[in-house]
């Protein structure tokens, strides 16, 4: 390259400049169309991904307590139109609509039992006003087709037995007394207090099959921060799965008849035991 004479270099430069100029000429309408389309699609993708990420994030909060009769959370988020008519219908001002800053799916109804619990009105005014069926009246009807608030499933009360003073041996049955399904959703279990030798523990126990999650117990709890509190069922309950079964309970065996066997499928995908042993154990660490 170094032996090119200056004159030639100059001409080459001029040529390059010329080609640069031609590049700046207006692009064809065909090309413009494709560029415009590409830009629009690209921008839409950009906006769509940002939007999806945000919406996915805000709807991921699983700690929201819903009004009675609410559909499963994912169906509820698709169905609730956020009109607030359940909020207006509630005579106790239990329900609120999530505002910006509440860190809950925006505009959806919820309640905080420690502030105002659900008082379980027998006529359930919040549910029939729902225009979309996000609050499902059918789920609150008894076998006799009558409204039955005890069918509600807003959540499940959970006891922190380290901070519940009844578990310390101090007599307190505030939650038990507050429970609208007295003696069924919360029962008191008696146990000898070995420390004193002459007193008994009176421990509250929540029964998940009858508890509606109304939160009257949480409201009534005497400790500074409630030692009994309502959580959505999916959070509060574990799941034993199909490996364990109550052999002494005939009804529990029925669970198995509905399951689909996945036996053998998982081992086929992975390495055999011999391969693993012969590999020098590297993939075990």
């Amino acid at each position, binding site marked *: 390259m170094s032996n090119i004479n200056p004159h030639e270099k100059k001409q080459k430069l001029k040529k390059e400049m010329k080609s640069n100029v031609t590049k700046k000429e207006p692009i064809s309408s065909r090309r413009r169309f494709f560029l415009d389309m590409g830009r629009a699609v690209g921008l839409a993708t950009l906006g*769509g991904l940002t939007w999806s990420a945000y919406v996915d994030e805000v709807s991921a909060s699983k700690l929201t307590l819903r009004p009675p009769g609410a559909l499963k959370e994912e169906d509820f988020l*698709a169905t609730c139109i956020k009109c607030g008519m359940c909020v207006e219908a509630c005579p106790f001002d239990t329900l609120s609509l999530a505002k910006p800053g509440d860190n809950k799916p925006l505009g959806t109804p919820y309640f905080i039992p420690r502030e105002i619990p659900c008082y379980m009105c027998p006529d359930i005014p919040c549910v029939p006003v729902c225009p*979309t069926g996000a609050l499902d009246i059918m789920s609150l009807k008894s076998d006799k087709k009558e409204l039955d608030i005890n069918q509600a499933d807003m959540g499940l009360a959970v006891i922190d037995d380290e901070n519940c003073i009844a578990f310390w041996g101090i007599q307190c049955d505030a939650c038990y007394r507050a429970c609208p399904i007295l003696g069924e959703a919360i029962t008191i279990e008696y146990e000898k207090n070995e420390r004193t030798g002459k007193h008994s523990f009176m421990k509250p126990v929540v029964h998940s099959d009858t508890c509606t999650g109304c939160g009257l117990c949480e409201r009534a709890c005497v400790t500074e921060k409630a030692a009994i509190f309502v959580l959505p069922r999916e959070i509060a309950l574990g799941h034993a799965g199909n490996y364990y079964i109550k052999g002494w309970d005939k009804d529990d065996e029925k669970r198995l008849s509905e399951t689909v066997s996945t036996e053998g499928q998982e081992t086929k995908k992975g390495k055999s035991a011999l391969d693993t042993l012969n590999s020098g154990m590297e993939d075990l660490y």
Partner: protein
Amino acid sequence: MKTLLMKNRYLILRRFTQVSVMALYIIANVYGINILMGNLSSSMFLGLVPLSDPYAVMQMFAAGAILTFDVIIGALIIMIFYAIVGGRVFCSWVCPVNIITDLANYLRRTLGFNQIQKKQPASRNIRYWVIALSVIISFILGITAFEFISPISMVHRGLIFGLGLGWAAMLIIFLFDLFVLKNGWCGHICPLGGFYSLVGKFSLIRVKHDADKCTACMKCKEVCPEMQVLHMVAKESKPVLSGECTNCARCIEVCDDDALIFSIRNKKNGEKNEIN
């Protein structure tokens, strides 16, 4: 004084309807006077007539919700109403965000921001893309995508049920319209406005232009939030046929020459050539 009233007659009426609709919702929530229960997403009129936001219902459908009879009827009533009186009548006569963006637009004009920023570097078709996106996202994520970010809902829901940080949404729209893009929210981005533009495409109530009376002062284009719909001003006598016209009637008020009036589409006054 009388001329001031005449010059703002529709503006005053619009503010009146906007405020009274919100007031009806608020008294239903606060005092239990149930003339109009709910909010702009879905309401119950006189405890009898269901009303629903058809755009929200569309997203619910895309999200896979089972639609009840009530929301379908409610959405149809709203659709038919706006299909007749003009889709974007919702925007300028009902939607509370309109008050915010009108204020931003007013300040833009009076303070002179329009002079320092003459070109608006964004397409007014963004709103239709946002509609398409909202349906796609609703379908994929199974939730009503726009309803989770809608500043419109934040505002009307906030006014009725408590604002929270909703004031920030109002401020964002205001600042965006004032400093970033003229008519940015209502005229470019808002998918609800876009939706109602499509709903009102064949509506009956139209602003009509009379080019013979027009003196080409262009006051109408200056105040119009969707000035592309006034393309015929000073050129041709014909009605404004774009669905994007909000029927806000500002152009009618500011016109000193009576060159713009409300009329019924397809009126038999020899306008055959104007109907598309």
